[in-house]
């Protein structure tokens, strides 16, 4: 009798991983069908709208409470953060302008610029454009 092909030893973790992958594919496939339906579009559209309105109402209430407690609200902290970001932005722009000024004043560059003369390796095929050429490759 010919030898049977040697099967891999049972590995419970590999089996567990395989089961998870199977579950992942099956659940995603099912969900993919649901999320491509018009009902899903209607549901998500309404849910998004309701969430935005609810969040806005909640934010307004919270803001009122914080104001009455003399505490800064999220929007006020965000405002400060954004003003800091604007200052940082301006500082970065000034630094860039100064750097340009410095480099133009410098008698010699600090490091030699690389030469822009590189050629592709000999093995690389040269492009051969032809009218309407469209090639497809798999990777």
């Amino acid at each position, binding site marked *: 009798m010919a030898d049977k092909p*040697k099967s891999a030893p049972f590995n419970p973790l590999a089996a567990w991983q395989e089961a998870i992958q199977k579950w*992942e594919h099956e659940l995603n496939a099912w*969900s993919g069908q649901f999320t491509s339906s018009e009902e899903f579009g209607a549901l998500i559209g309404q849910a*998004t709208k309701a969430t935005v309105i609810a969040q806005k109402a909640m934010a307004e209430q919270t803001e009122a409470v914080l104001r009455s407690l003399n505490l800064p609200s999220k929007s006020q902290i965000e405002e400060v953060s*954004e003003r800091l970001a604007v200052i940082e*932005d301006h500082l970065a722009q000034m630094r860039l302008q100064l750097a340009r000024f410095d480099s133009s004043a410098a008698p010699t560059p600090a490091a030699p610029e*690389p030469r822009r003369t590189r050629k592709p390796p000999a093995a690389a095929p040269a492009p051969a*454009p032809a009218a309407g050429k469209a090639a497809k490759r798999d990777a």
Partner: protein
Amino acid sequence: MPDAAAPNGLEILDPELISRQVREEVDRALKRNIKGLDFLVAEAAPVGHMPKDVLYREGTAVLYGYRPLQDEIYRVPLLVVSPPSNRGYIFDLAKGQSFFEYLLQQGYDVYNLDWNPPRRDEAGLDFDDYVGRFIPKALEVIEAQTGESEVSLAGYCAGGTLATTYAATSFARPIRNLILLATPVDFNHMPLFQTWADRRYFDVDLLVRELELIPPEIMLGAFDLARPANRPAGRATLWNNMWNDDFVKSYRMFDRWAAETLPIPGAYFGTLVKKLMWENALVAGTLEVCGETADLGRIDASILNIVARHDHVVAHEATAPLMTMTASSDRDEIVAKGGHVSLVAGPPALKRLWPLIDQWLAPRSV
């Protein structure tokens, strides 16, 4: 006998093999528990590996110039446009896992137009700003830096859509090559987004008016609903591999990138939904940028269209007009194994895809 097979096809029972396997699993279980605790208390994974300089910054827009690794580089510089909703460090995660590191090693002069989280006073930024202001300004800075007027323009996902739209305008600077990775152009073939932003039910004006900046949760929620098993399955896979430092490091970097999805300006989001999603304006030839129509037929640069075979975000069909509606006489397409992110990060891209990109781009960069 050790190699006798059980009726269910499983092998019984080599005591030495089982003993080795038990030892290995106990060792891994111990490591899992120790490293699992480390994982829970660890700070954000460090990302961004290659040295770079900020060359231009204007609010949300920031142009990085990467320092060349070779003494002799290709003449034509390469500008990669990041998607406005994602951090550009996905192109440069870590040593040995960095698209930019690979390109720099091959002798390219690499620039990245990346995005900071937009401020509230930038909620009015629209396609006109991204395509008509930020990309042209980045190219102007690159020309001043390199002395080269020609450029290779690349983009990933929505960054590719911005690059394509720019190339389709009459004010575009000379573009030698256009390299597009998972770039949606035909939005009729974006089924998840079409359902999610169904114009009968989706009140985009309310969102833009009330939120000003559109938080990432709005879109990520749709992704999670479409593929609800991904997160728990990912966590289970992480637990299985918790003993493996390389896996955990890679997982943490991807996890950080996904968690740091950026908000996008409301006006840009409005145009994305109304013009691209509802009207498919880029394909229909009705997308106006800075008062003029973007025309795909105007693009005559060499095109490399790269798509992922299992991309659940951008289907192959959504990129098809790049190969059919452009005026270029030199168009190539690569269909890579894997999903949306695997084009720009991960070992398979390093081994298989990026060498193909280099092979295509090198002779077109002299």
